[in-house]
């Protein structure tokens, strides 16, 4: 019952194998880089649920990403680490709650309005943190100690070790992926897909579409919070820029780059985006011009070119219509 064509699935399988062995062949530095990519992949997948499946384009998604990071920062005392087992669910729940509240206002709008109000609300959150010293202000906040994972006084795993953090993040990324894939086929996921294609008809058939969209918005926000928490764990530093519309638009780019609606594309897109960004920032000197310094110019042009010529992403280029809608019938037993 899989949507993705065989070739793509093989490629993804190979990619997973590569991820599993990577830390053993690469250095710590690259392991950390890939960990960051996996964290962004979780963010991209959460956005794919909202955008690719439900069809809601949000320019404010990063707000829920940043909020969870801030939650970890507030919960971690200056002098000692805090427990993973309770702070992670709390941060995720916090982001979900924020998404529920903001979603209540935002989901009642449609089309371009939705895009604009999500942007406005996210900037509101951004300015809330930027303007208030008590919340860290423009300097942001530090997380001095990574959370500890202990059971009955014994350390289960040590997140200070880059290797452990890598596999912890990989496990969560895979968990989110398989959860979202199941969600896609569930009645909830099917309803979201229907809403994306023709919301009016869904209502005419008896679906309370507001509730579905709000649920998708909330769930996506909570998952973005998971990514944000992990970002805080890895980098130890949270600032308002992680919540602004620039970050949200970058996340949208990741989803677009990979191909929307199947979650594998989101992972591919996040990796691609980060890789391109690193490549551009590391461009060498050409004569007297430092090409890498002007990475924004190349990044912007790259985005423009992708939109112009490849708006269905990498997976869309590989297969003309990867976007085949999934079947809900069990083909062995139709009426």
């Amino acid at each position, binding site marked *: *019952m899989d949507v993705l064509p065989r070739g793509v699935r093989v490629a993804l399988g190979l990619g997973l194998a590569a991820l599993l062995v990577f830390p053993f062949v690469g250095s710590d530095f690259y392991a950390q880089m890939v960990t960051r990519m996996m964290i962004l992949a979780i963010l991209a997948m959460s956005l794919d649920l909202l955008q690719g499946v439900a069809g809601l384009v949000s320019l404010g998604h990063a707000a829920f990403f940043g909020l969870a990071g801030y939650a970890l920062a507030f919960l971690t005392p200056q002098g000692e680490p805090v427990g993973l087992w309770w702070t992670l669910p709390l941060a995720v729940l916090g982001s979900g709650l924020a998404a529920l509240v903001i979603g209540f206002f935002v989901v009642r709008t449609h089309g371009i309005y939705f895009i604009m109000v999500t942007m406005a609300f996210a900037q509101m959150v951004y300015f809330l943190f930027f303007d208030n010293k008590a919340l860290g202000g423009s300097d942001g906040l530090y997380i001095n100690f990574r959370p500890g994972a202990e059971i009955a006084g014994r350390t289960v795993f040590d997140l200070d070790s880059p290797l452990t953090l890598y596999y912890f993040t990989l496990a969560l990324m895979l968990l989110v992926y398989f*959860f979202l894939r*199941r*969600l896609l*086929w*569930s*009645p*909830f*996921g*099917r*309803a979201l*897909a*229907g809403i994306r*294609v*023709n919301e*009016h*008809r*869904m*209502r*005419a*058939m*008896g*679906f*309370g*579409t507001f*509730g579905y969209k709000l*649920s998708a918005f909330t769930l996506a926000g909570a998952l973005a919070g998971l990514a944000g928490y992990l970002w805080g764990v890895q980098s130890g530093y949270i600032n308002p820029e992680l919540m602004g519309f620039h970050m949200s638009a970058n996340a949208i780019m990741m989803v677009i780059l990979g191909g929307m609606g199947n979650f594998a594309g989101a992972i591919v897109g996040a990796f691609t985006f980060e890789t391109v960004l690193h490549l551009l920032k590391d461009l060498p000197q050409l004569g007297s011009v430092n090409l890498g310094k002007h990475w924004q110019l190349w990044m912007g042009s790259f985005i423009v070119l992708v939109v112009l010529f490849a708006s269905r992403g990498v997976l869309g280029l590989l297969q003309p219509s990867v*976007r085949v*809608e999934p*079947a*809900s*019938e*069990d083909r062995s*037993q*139709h*009426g």
Partner: protein
Amino acid sequence: MAEIVLSARHLTRRFGGLAAVDDVSVDLWRGRIHAVIGPNGAGKSTLANLLSGDLLPSSGSVLIGGQDTTGWSPERVSRAGLGRSYQKTNIFLPFSVWDNAFLGAQSREAQQPWNPLRWLQPAARSQRARERCAGALALAGLSHRHGAIAGTISHGEQRQLEIAMALATEPQVLLLDEPLAGMGAAEAHKMVELLLRLKQEHAMLLVEHDMDAVFTLADHLTVMVNGQVIASGSPADIRADPMVQAAYLGEEH
């Protein structure tokens, strides 16, 4: 025994100073087809929208199965037992025929947002929904096309799918807005047969321009002009009514 399934009383809808629907009352019985005819701009589609919840009436009431559904949202009206098809084909073009109808079948399941299975178990697992879906497609004559993508099937088949989607929600009342729109003779014939099959189990309101089909199908006719009902009765009565002939039939035939 025929019962009244839908009863609309004194429905009026104003836009600014203009009454698009003006004091219209309609009763729908199970097992009978009630056709609404009239020239373009008579307010027929507006009336359909008022009954289905897509538009709020300025005054008047609608009862479905004894429940007052006046002012209800489209989703609530659907759940009260009204299924609607549209004049302009309103299907899910990228989905298969099966998936189009399946969504309708799925809508009748208990939504139960607290139940994790609704979020994790494949939608196709539900036997009840599959049966409903298969039944609707069979009734609409589309079983053999279940795997085709809706955007690729013929116009006539798309109109059949329009109705199948409404049928999948197992409604008591069917509101059909120009089901024969854009059809050639052969396709229209098939559609008329379909509508006659549906008549037995449902109360039906039919908005149509195709007069041959209307007089074949209708048990009762209402004629609207400029938002008002100018005549209402059996096909024979309507055909003989001089006002109707002057206003509408005379021009068309």
